[in-house]
């Protein structure tokens, strides 16, 4: 095992083509060739970003475009098999990273997974349970009204669902606000040097918020479909 680890390290430390020293770079500084991807790279380090949660969307896009121009398989058609492979690995990693990090929710989810959190089960916030119960009843009412095709009842059920929908949307907006506040807290902890004891409560809260959020957004989706 130990031997395997050393080998891996060695492979990472030198260029795959010219054996010059080049740890953790996209291109070898000596021969300029694109380097194969190591299995350990995460999206943040791949993009050269610290593990902060607040990031500038315009700058992320800029770096996505600029790295795309460096990695894309289009530009490696005449290169060796190994370089083509490396270009494919780096550009798919880049695309995957951009997709995960560009949105607030997916970025938080990704950070949680890096910190060892499993994707939390979707569940409603405790104070929403009653409301959810009520909502399901109204959805059933609408379905029944549609089935027996009574115009008046359909209209009534519909407008009460519309109302519920806007309250759920307000709820989502509120969760997003709280998420942003947590982002700020996380970034502060990160700046100060990441004490594990400080990190955990913030990540726990974030995980819980995300679970609520995905529950509610699924609910919104279902209701919209029914409407």
């Amino acid at each position, binding site marked *: 095992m130990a031997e*395997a680890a050393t080998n891996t390290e060695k492979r990472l430390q030198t260029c795959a083509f010219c054996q010059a020293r080049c740890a953790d770079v996209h291109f070898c500084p000596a021969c300029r060739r694109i380097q194969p991807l190591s299995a350990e790279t995460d999206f943040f380090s791949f993009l050269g970003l610290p593990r902060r949660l607040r990031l500038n969307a315009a700058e992320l896009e800029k770096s996505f475009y600029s790295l*795309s*121009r460096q990695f894309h398989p289009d530009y490696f*058609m005449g290169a060796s098999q190994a370089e083509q492979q490396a270009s*494919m690995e780096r550009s798919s990693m880049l695309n*995957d990273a951009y997709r995960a990090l560009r949105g607030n929710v997916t970025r938080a989810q990704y950070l949680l997974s890096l910190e060892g959190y499993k994707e939390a089960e979707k569940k409603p916030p405790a104070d929403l349970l009653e409301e959810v119960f009520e909502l399901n009843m109204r959805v059933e009412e609408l379905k029944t009204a549609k089935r027996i095709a009574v115009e008046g009842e359909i209209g009534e059920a519909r407008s009460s669902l519309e109302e519920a929908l806007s309250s759920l949307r307000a709820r989502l907006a509120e969760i997003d606000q709280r998420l942003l506040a947590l982002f700020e807290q996380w970034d502060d902890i990160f700046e100060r040097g990441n004490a594990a004891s400080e990190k955990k409560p913030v990540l726990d809260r974030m995980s819980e918020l995300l679970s609520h959020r995905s529950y509610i957004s699924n609910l919104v989706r279902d209701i919209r479909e029914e409407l």
Partner: protein
Amino acid sequence: MPVIELGMSGRPKSGRVVGIDLGTTNSLVAFVGDNGPEVIRDESGNALVPSIVYYDHDEDRLLVGEEAGDRLITEPHKAIYSVKRFMGKGGADVQEDLNLVPFQIAPDSEQVIGFQMGDRVFTPPEISAFILRDLKRRASRFFGEEVSQAVITVPAYFNDAQRQATKDAGHLAGLEVLRIVNEPTAASLAYGIDKRDEAIVAVYDLGGGTFDISILKLKDGIFEVLATNGDTHLGGDDLDNRLITLLLEEAKSRTGESSAKDPAVFQAIRRAVIEAKHELSEAEVSFAVIDSGAERGASFERKITRDEFEGLIVDLVERTLGPCKQALKDADLDPGQIDEVVMVGGSTRIPLVRRRVKELFKREPHVELNPDEVVALGAAIQADVLAGGRRDLLLLDVTPLSLGIETMGGVVAKIINRNSTIPASASEMFTTWVDNQTGIDIHVLQGEREMVDDCRSLARFTLKGIPPQPAGLPRIEVKFLIDANGILTVSARDLRTAHEHSIEVKPSYGLTDEQIEKMLLDSFEFAEQDIRRRQLVEARNEATTVMHAAEKALAERAQGLIDENERAAISQALDDLRGAVGGEDHQLIREKIKALDDASHHLAEIIMDSAVLAALKDRKASEVAEG
């Protein structure tokens, strides 16, 4: 893999990469020259090759394009058109289509459709390969050197099997397919709306058989697809079918049941309504003139107004709007945020289509470029990028359909969502369920629905050679990668031993590598025949030139230079050659060309001498003048 040199051997290999639009109705090839992208035309100036293949089993004769199309009415069972609709499909997928085309489907068409033509069976990739080979030859002739690398376009909404089938077709045609590019994206390259710093562009592409909508963000030369959607089963063919169904009914009432079932009548109606459809884009009224030949009986004229036509197709046009709205939603945009709308595909010439698109996006769509050529031009631009010609442009396309794997209870777990920028990848961890299990089966699907039965099965993989261990202990990481062509590759790694795992792939639809190898050999046989055909054409051409020269010499110059015997010998040789040209034997033609050469050799010499004398005389005169 061996690439068959289809009769172009001896010519230098070219580093050129061409762009090919392999369309449902027409196909064409383009390249980037000094003056930008341009399509390659034949001797008579036509860029479009009708996507029709004719095969006569008895004569073992293969025709592609216009010539094949000419035989649709006379020999409907020997020609295949709209083959693109059958690419990457199994027998069960195409029942509906088969009601509307007179093709005979071979038995055993479950995984790949086979068209029965005489004793031979051709799959859609093979039929497409004949078309591609024709385009390849056209390009090779144009450049005077063999073209062997191409970019081929496909509808953006094509799934993995359809893309793979297209790539297979290229391979069978002796082309190295450097990239499969989505048609709407290619079109956006050709339009090159890069005059602005930044723009959101919607490309509405309604072709012969398929519909695509793609929404792109253009910024600093990067063409980033934000969302794509479509219907691979909606196009001009479907519009034609509405008219065909109507006129078939009328033919039936005019001439009885039997004529409606006659494929020749069907083709006559099809041709007439397509012409009428084209006219109705310009005129308010058109007449479909059905003429299936006197002996068939079904010859009549039918007036069609634009209103009637629009009434027949309005629901089909409406059906394109759903995917447009979905794409907008996926891109998180309102119609008002679209800066430009680009129209692609022949069916966008229809005024109703233009009207509805304009209403949806609230702006006048671009129709400046020829909608039949714009995709090929874009493919040529992408080909130029791949050939290293330019680095200022970059296409970032997406996968149109979500990729998932089957989990417990027939539910699909999505691992790569639709509209993810490609290349895209996802890794999943697998383990064993029982002790000492040495293989794991994985079922990969494409589609948006929850259940396996509602998605498109792509392939079943078996991870093999897992060392016997207690259940749950092995940790096999499987990496799914969708490459820049939108085609899936799968690799697996045992995380405990770091060994790469062998994977056995059973594609659910499509050809296996062995089948393709076999077809390559098959097409080699054809290549032999094709060489003979070309030799015949070349010999005939040369004969025509030689005969023309000899006739001219006899008529204008021979007077007084040769005697009657010699004149008779030349006339005889001319007649012999004329006779040979009427036959199919290129060697005989060559013989007779030589005979005519020999017979007229003396005359040619005399003419030459007198020409030299004349030239000398001229020269002396001019020397005198100079002196």
